């Protein structure tokens, strides 16, 4: 069977049924290391307990700071905890491992593009995590608060969460692709992890950040991952601000996707297969 020529586009057009299998392997990946998974859940709870304690102390007797009530603040932290649990990409590590042991050679002779295989695997892994919301959400409700927003805001939050997920995957995809040059991405990963979680507003929402830090945060893509969807959820971004947030996320998604396409083109010329 001699197949006709296809374009080099990394997203491709025709759906390959093998992608479903790669997806399922991703789901399986979530449950391959259970201890790690359970510790991850505990970490979400633990972090919520700690930041909640800190913020309660900061508020003290005040009911409002900068127009944000203590209840809103706690809901914000809880939503961020949930987002951080749900958005936990392994795509960078997957790519790194494959470059490191040379298995990338096998991935690249399959009739599914490398990036699409990685995305399907990531989607499977994330879906596997989302199934655990049945445990995580009750825990979060117990420790914090998920006071539901208006149905309209909730719908926009879902859209915003989807965009946040996509932005995060593009960022980690870029980190993973850097392995084509760096071979070891350990340093890169912890740097992006640290900077990312701070500027995403996981500990301090952007509205409490001092001027310069806030400006930096607003110019970085990380706010799109946690801060923007969480502020929509708690009703801090409403009306125009809400749609502006969605616009910022969509813009970042487009920019990052372009960057991924460009970097992937260059990476193919840089590829070195380890171990013959």
């Amino acid at each position, binding site marked *: *069977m*001699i*197949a*006709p*020529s*296809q374009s*080099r586009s990394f997203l*491709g057009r025709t759906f*390959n*049924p*093998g992608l*479903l*299998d790669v997806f399922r*392997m991703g789901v*399986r990946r979530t449950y391959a290391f259970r201890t790690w998974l359970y510790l991850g859940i505990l970490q979400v709870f633990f972090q919520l307990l700690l930041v909640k304690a800190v913020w309660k102390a900061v508020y003290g007797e005040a009911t409002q700071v900068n127009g944000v009530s203590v209840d809103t603040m706690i809901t914000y932290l809880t939503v961020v905890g949930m987002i951080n649990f749900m958005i936990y990409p392994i795509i960078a590590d997957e790519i790194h491992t494959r470059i490191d042991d*040379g*298995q*990338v*050679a*096998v991935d*690249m*002779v*399959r*009739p*599914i*593009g490398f990036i699409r295989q990685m995305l399907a695997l990531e989607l499977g892994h994330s879906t596997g995590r989302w199934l655990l919301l049945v445990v995580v959400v009750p825990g979060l409700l117990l420790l914090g608060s998920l006071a539901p927003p208006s149905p309209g805001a909730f719908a926009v939050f879902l859209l915003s969460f989807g965009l946040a997920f996509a932005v995060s995957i593009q960022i980690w995809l870029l980190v993973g692709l850097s392995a084509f040059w760096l071979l070891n991405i350990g340093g890169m990963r912890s740097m992006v992890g640290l900077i990312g979680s701070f500027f995403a507003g996981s500990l301090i929402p952007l509205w409490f950040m001092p001027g310069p830090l806030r400006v930096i945060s607003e110019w970085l893509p990380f706010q799109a991952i946690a801060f923007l969807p969480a502020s929509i959820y708690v009703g801090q971004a409403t009306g125009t601000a809400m749609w502006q947030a969605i616009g910022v996320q969509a813009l970042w998604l487009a920019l990052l996707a372009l960057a991924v396409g460009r970097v992937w083109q260059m990476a*193919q*010329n840089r*590829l*070195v*297969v380890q*171990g*013959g």
Partner: protein
Amino acid sequence: MPIIQANHVAKAFTRTKAVDGRFSAVRTLFTRATETIHAVEDVSFSVDEGEIVGYLGPNGAGKSTTIKILTGILVPTAGQIAVAGLVPWENREANAMNIGVVFGQRTQLWWALPLQESLRLIGRMYRMPEDAYRRSLDQLTELLDMGPFLQTPVRQLSLGQRMRGDLAAAVLYRPPILFLDEPTVGLDIVAKERIRAFIEEINRERKTTVLLTTHDLEDVERLCKRIIIIDHGRVLFDGQANDLRRRYAPSRLVDVTVSGEGVAALSGVLGALPAGVSVVSHEGMRASFEVQPERVAVSDLIAAIAARTPIADLAVREPAMEGIIRQIYEAREVIA
């Protein structure tokens, strides 16, 4: 009509130069010095449909790099390639449908899955209809005797079983071209023979074109009429294996053992050898001769001995491919 064509292909890698001496690890971090490695300098060849070609060369010659370019994994720095009419790295997915690949050093099967599950997944990726998949799996299960381990997870297979599984995965969807990068590496004699018989069968039955790299010259003697030898990223030889043999080691070796009474007669023979025969060794009842076939027929030598004394044992040997290849690797010159 060639199914694989490579024209002046080159591939260079750039890498950061490691620094020697004190604090070398730290200094390497701050150095901008890079070095360029020319894995493939200039390689051209073409392969016709249905051929089995042995692609040989010492370690680091550029064999695997060439295979990785032909399969679309690597992008060459220069040159043109067409594999079944496609430029591999520009049409990776379409090219993948046309080729089967086995890397002896790694597996394309999934460690955690039973072999059959792995193969089913391959079948889906290559968009095989259910009945075509069934038929192909049944045929391969029989040919490769995979029945006993189809349900075993890949990580528990022996190397020989795994290699059979990998071969099955590479030909399951009946690709017209097969790239085999050291498919017998690390296998025992029986397992190697099974793999060779399988390659031969697939080539005969399906007219599959095979490009094979190996360090085991038994593979070459058994399977390849044509060989391409490369070193330092250049082609040293491209032609029929027989030509190479004729050119490098045209002579035949004849070992003769005569019966007890013939010892004196054998000495007599040694005194009156036909032209084109020389004595390699002689000890009591045994003697070895080197015969130049273009000057004298091996049968004439045997007749000359048999005329004087009964022969107890006789062997005619062709020089082994191994010796020839060793000469070429050591000389490292292009053979016109």
